[in-house]
């Protein structure tokens, strides 16, 4: 890092790389740079494959003012060498930052707006704050050694232990206030996780050497073991145990590994797994033993929710005619829903048919046919926009309105899943004469969003994305 490689070292490295003598490499390098220098002096540029291009440009003499005397003076011209690195070299060197791309900034976004968003979604900020803690929790099983603890955790630990014996199932929050999520996730200890936790002896040896500043979970983990072996009141072994926990001391636990495992399994107080803070996941963590039931329940809920959304969307658009509701449900089911849901929709349709036959005997099939296609088109885009605005690729031709906030790129993001495809919207609308300049669209203009298939739009396909990017660059340059 940041070392300066001298010519001698360069020769060494080259000799190793080519498995030739240093002499050969030295002669070669000297001649190489002599030739390049001479060519540059002759006024010609040199391109070296894998290195780059050395180009010579002349700087004209210019007038300036002598700073001390204030008298005008002439700065003489000279020849300047510019070096453009070869693509392979530039990419290799830029590897650490390769994943970044140039981003177009939205001028409408201000700091106040961002602050508002942060307020509304505090959970979006929290994970970052928690990250170091959760990492410690993950590392915990490996670093099982008793290590001198920071004062605070040790003082807190006895409290947690006491409560453990009294109410074995409900652990009291062992951590400082900063980590409400961890407390929530604390009751999660499952048999699975705990059986994973016993560490092999090899790990112990390694982990003794590795010490991180935050040891608090480790200390707690070790506590139950001396307790069980000595069968003494809880607090005493802990206070005594603190000096024992020095880094150089041997661990009693190694003598009875199996017992220890069981005990740990039983008493385990501290949060082992920290999940992301969404309430669903915390709920899931709490009920890990009957996970399957939970999954079933959740999926059931999701299905019900989808049906409810569908039913609501249809009834909003057309509360009177039950026939259309069924049609809409069917079309959506074809596109997006799973087989189960389709079955359910079929059942629903049967029911509707029954109801319909009882109530309206006079409705004729021809009329239904007339109504159907219209409704399909109306209902479908709405639904899609409602459910998956970003990820869903639009396959129908729809129209949307440009406002001061919503521009072509936003529309493209909404309908195709990537802002780069705005060029196609632009092209389509130029062809139709709706707009002229992509940067100057009157708010309120209705633009046509072409179907994705017409221009081969696919946000998941890199080639398609690349094509759109190149195109948009051309447009931006041309303007």
């Amino acid at each position: 890092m940041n070392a300066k490689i001298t010519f001698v070292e360069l020769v060494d490295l080259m000799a190793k790389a080519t498995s030739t003598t240093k002499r050969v490499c030295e002669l070669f390098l000297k001649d190489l740079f002599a030739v390049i220098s001479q060519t540059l002096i002759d006024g010609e540029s040199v391109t070296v494959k894998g290195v780059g291009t050395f180009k010579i440009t002349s700087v004209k003499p210019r007038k300036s003012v002598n700073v001390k005397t204030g008298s005008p003076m002439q700065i003489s011209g000279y020849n300047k060498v510019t070096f453009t690195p070869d693509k392979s070299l530039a990419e290799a060197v830029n590897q650490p930052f390769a994943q970044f791309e140039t981003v177009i900034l939205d001028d409408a976004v201000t700091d106040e707006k961002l602050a508002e968003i942060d307020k509304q979604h505090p959970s979006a900020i929290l994970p970052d704050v928690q990250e170091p803690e959760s990492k410690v929790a993950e590392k915990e099983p490996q670093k099982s050694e008793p290590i001198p603890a920071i004062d605070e955790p040790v003082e807190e630990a006895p409290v947690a232990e006491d409560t453990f014996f009294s109410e074995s199932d409900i652990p009291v929050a062992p951590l400082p206030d900063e980590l409400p999520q961890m407390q929530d996730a604390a009751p999660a200890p499952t048999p699975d996780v705990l059986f994973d936790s016993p560490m092999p002896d090899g790990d112990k040896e390694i982990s003794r050497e590795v010490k991180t500043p935050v040891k608090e979970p480790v200390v707690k983990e070790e506590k139950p073991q001396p307790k069980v072996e000595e069968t003494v009141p809880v607090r005493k072994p802990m206070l005594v145990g603190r000096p024992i926990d020095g880094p150089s001391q041997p661990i009693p636990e190694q003598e009875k590994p199996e017992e220890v495992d069981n005990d740990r399994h039983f008493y385990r107080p501290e949060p082992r797994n920290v999940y992301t803070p969404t309430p669903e996941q915390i709920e899931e963590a709490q009920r890990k033993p009957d996970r399957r039931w939970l999954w079933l329940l959740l999926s059931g809920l999701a299905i019900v929710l989808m049906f409810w959304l569908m039913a609501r969307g249809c009834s909003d658009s057309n509360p009177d005619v039950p026939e259309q509701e069924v049609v809409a449900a069917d079309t959506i089911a074809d596109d997006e829903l799973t087989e189960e849901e389709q079955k359910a929709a079929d059942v629903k349709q049967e029911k509707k048919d029954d109801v319909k036959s009882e109530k309206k005997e006079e409705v004729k099939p021809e009329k239904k046919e007339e109504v159907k296609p219209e409704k399909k088109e109306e209902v479908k885009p709405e639904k899609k926009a409602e459910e998956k605005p970003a990820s869903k690729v639009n396959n129908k031709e729809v129209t949307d309105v440009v406002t001061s906030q919503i521009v072509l790129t936003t529309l493209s993001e909404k309908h195709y899943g990537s802002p780069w495809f705005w060029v196609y919207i632009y092209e389509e609308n130029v062809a139709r004469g709706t707009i002229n300049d992509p940067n100057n669209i009157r708010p309120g203009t209705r633009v046509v969003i072409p179907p994705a298939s017409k221009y081969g739009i696919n946000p998941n396909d890199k080639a398609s994305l690349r094509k759109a990017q190149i195109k948009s660059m051309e447009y931006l340059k041309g303007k």
Partner: protein
Amino acid sequence: MDNKKLIDTISGNLGRSKEDVGKLLEAFAGVLRERCSEMDSVQVPGFGTFEPKKRDERVMVQPSTGKRMLVPPKIVVGFKISNVLKAKLK
């Protein structure tokens, strides 16, 4: 002068085959790439220094459209010419 001509010239000067010279040139490019990726600078006396430098991210305004763009940070290889060569070029 392109790569091929450069190899021709060097092989003529050294009396080695073009293949050999091509391999040596490739090896030099490889060493340079490797060292620069490690953020080491490579000095060649009488010629100049190849030095990787980090460029910070910056906001760029596209002059034609007036759109503001956030250009990501990057590492680029710079070349600083030595004073000897600079004097010769004058």
